[in-house]
């Protein structure tokens, strides 16, 4: 039950994009087509989970015992950047179509504050390793959900009568705002 609530919290109540406002850049950039959104979301889920799985032991075995936990941000950036590079190499070698379709957005994960944010949140909330990893996975799923929902809506924008001044990013931001309001409604679920 704990894990269920943890997942619900990560996906809906504290959605990393729509409630915590992290990772807005790839959220806006890669949510124009459902196919790309799924690819990007999948990559983020993977990187986020791996990032927590790597940063948790570093935090608990290296930084905290040595009293250098103030290095948390810089060390986590270093680990996540390396991880993304690794994923990029992997995709290029084994899944070239996904690599080609993600294009510039894959390196963007390196600087995706959602990934760093989740890794730091896990530490800040003192989550044990397994709970931390599950929370990261669910946060990634929340990111994926938000991305796909947004892409589905934006595909409709292509055929909707939107005033010229609102077309493109403005209407996407307005939509993201409305979606945030909708996700805030989940707050009551957490008790």
């Amino acid at each position: 039950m704990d894990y269920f609530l943890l997942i619900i919290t990560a996906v809906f109540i504290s959605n990393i994009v729509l409630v915590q406002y992290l990772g807005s850049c790839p959220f806006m950039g890669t949510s124009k087509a459902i196919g790309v959104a799924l690819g990007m979301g999948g990559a983020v889920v993977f990187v986020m989970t791996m990032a927590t799985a790597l940063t948790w032991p570093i935090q608990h075995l290296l930084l905290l015992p040595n009293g250098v936990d103030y290095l948390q941000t810089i060390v986590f950036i270093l680990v996540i950047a390396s991880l993304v590079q690794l994923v990029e190499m992997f995709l290029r070698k084994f899944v070239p179509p996904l690599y080609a379709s993600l294009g510039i957005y894959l390196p963007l994960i390196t600087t995706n504050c959602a990934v760093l944010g989740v890794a730091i949140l896990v530490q800040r909330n003192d989550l044990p390793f397994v709970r931390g990893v599950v929370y990261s996975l669910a946060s990634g799923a929340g990111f994926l959900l938000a991305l796909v929902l947004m892409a589905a809506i934006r595909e409709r924008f292509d055929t909707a009568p939107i005033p010229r001044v609102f077309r493109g990013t403005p209407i996407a931001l307005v939509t993201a705002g409305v979606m945030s309001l909708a996700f805030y409604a989940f707050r009551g679920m957490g008790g």
Partner: protein
Amino acid sequence: MIASSVAIVFGLSFVAAVLLAAASRVFHVEEDPRVAEVEACLPGANCGGCGLPGCSAAAAAVVAGEAPPEICVAGGMDTAAAIARVMGLSVDYREPQVAALICSGGDRAKRMFAYEGVRDCRAEAMLYGGEKSCGLGCIGMGSCVRACPFDAVRLGRDNLPVVNKALCRSCGKCAEVCPTGAIRITSFSASLLHVNKLVDCLAPCMQKCPVQLDVRTFVQQVKTGDLHGALLTLKNRNPLPLIVGRICPHPCEDICRRKIVDEGVGINALERYVADWEMNTGRIPIHVAPETGRKVAIVGGGPAGLSCAYFLRRLGHHPVIFESHSALGGMLRYAIPEFRLPRNVVDWEIQGILELGVEVRTYMTFGKDFDLGDLESQGYEAVFLATGAWRNPRLYIPGDDARNIVGGVDFLTGVGSRWTNLKGRRAVVVGGTNSAMDIARSLVRLGAERTSVLTRHIPRKMAANKYEIEKAEEIGAEILVQTMPQSFELDESGRAVAVRYVRTEYPDEKKAAGEPRPVPGTEARLEADLFVVATDRVPDLSPYLDKRGLGPFRLTKQGTIIGDDMTMRTNLPHVFVGGELRRGRSIVMEAVADGRRAARSIHNFVTTGDVPMPTLPQERVVPESLLKGMRVRWRIPKVQPSEVPVKARLERFALEVRRGIGDREAVKEASRCLRCGFTCYDAEAGSEFAEDRDVTPYEQAVEN
């Protein structure tokens, strides 16, 4: 503290670096440096028109040899050439393609519901089937406009998309989102090779025209003063507009929807108007694809052969016409009298075709100077046979071999040389064909004292057109309807002096149905000095048969060579047949149509080795498109081209009888066109001429 911090950061960095270095070895992907070079050549539009997810993928496909240098639809020939340079390849000609709309709008049926949902053609098509009565028409919500990544499509009048050809990159996005197929991607070759399909939006005139002329577009171009465009529209289907504009019996006008409320649009007069405009102002250059170097032999330089040569040349091939006469034109030059078709018109039209690069060899008779084997050994990849139907069959009645009984074709080809003056002579023409009318009109002009035409039918059932019959009667020929010759009376010298004939009746006299049969006891005789037989024309098959009467081709019982109706292909895979050699006696437009279809087949045959059948071709008039009643707002009289007086016709044999129409007349006539689609039409057509005295409101609109 500082030391441990530095040690930890550097230590972690070192570990990460080592891991990444190891990973880069494990996951190493060899990338051809040319991928980046090719990608740099591409415009980076990522339009997806090439079928790949983006320019990077396209570049990788080119380098991998999976795509040609011409892959980019957005970049055109310059991009293709740049890619070819990087790859060390030669670039093939990449034909420009553009989006084209087939829907003319017409009087678009009211929508079933006031739909307030997503403004998308697909949504409306899915929910309500789009327009009320036409599944082919443009829905007009502008999905194509929004889908176009190059801003090449906008919504024009009546919410119909207008394509800016200069901006269109043929990515196909507009066609992709169009649920009815009203907007399509097409190219010059595709339009030349297109056979009208059931899924096209075809007005009745377009369905009836043998060459499938885009009548609606060309008439609208005349209306807007775009004569250049109108000429190109004509020449995309018909290489002989000047000739056809004079002699076509225009079946399109007979089926014109406007005929339901008044008279059909004068399509033929407009065609002549546009073609005359070109002849008077100077030749308009037309697009010819780059040379392919493929040689095709065309046997016969009549309308079918000329048409085939013209289309093959425009597709880049090298057609060579073999003609037995001294000049090209066939029946057009040798059998149609000058008062209907002046020689300078024939010369100008043929010269235009030759200037495209068609080669001609005159005085070359098939079966005598060369045969199929010779053509094959000379490197011709395909052969089109179109030697026409130059033989008049005998009547097979007593005395029909008399010296002064001549065939219609012989007579017409001998006018001006063998037949120059028939003053005081009496002549009888047997037959009710257009040729018979031409002969009768020629005989009167040559001074014949009395010219009679014997025909088995009543005028409505005669093979000749109503107009030709009227002209023959107008000049003084006597048409003896429902008569049938029985025998000729000969004198001692073997000359025929009279024809004995009987009256005929139809099995169902009231409806004039069935084949007329002689009525016993109605015998009569008609004396004359010259008898011309023009009942029919059949091909001379002797060049295609050996002494035993056998040959390589399958033949019909009527003595024509069998060729497929769609592909014109004979039983020999590389030989195609068309015109009167395949159909027997027919109109010039049918010969032109055969030439065009043969060119399509030959093009496919020489380029792919296969001759595909067109999918869903429109072969007969679709009943759904024939409306019984219409509401049209304005009644405008049909243009009547003026004609020279009968007296002048009798004085000057070669004087062309019918004149062309003027500029205002042409625009006004074009405004009568209802811009019909499959079932729709423009009820307000011609409203811009509402102030004219001869234009009246059509108050008594015919109800369905």
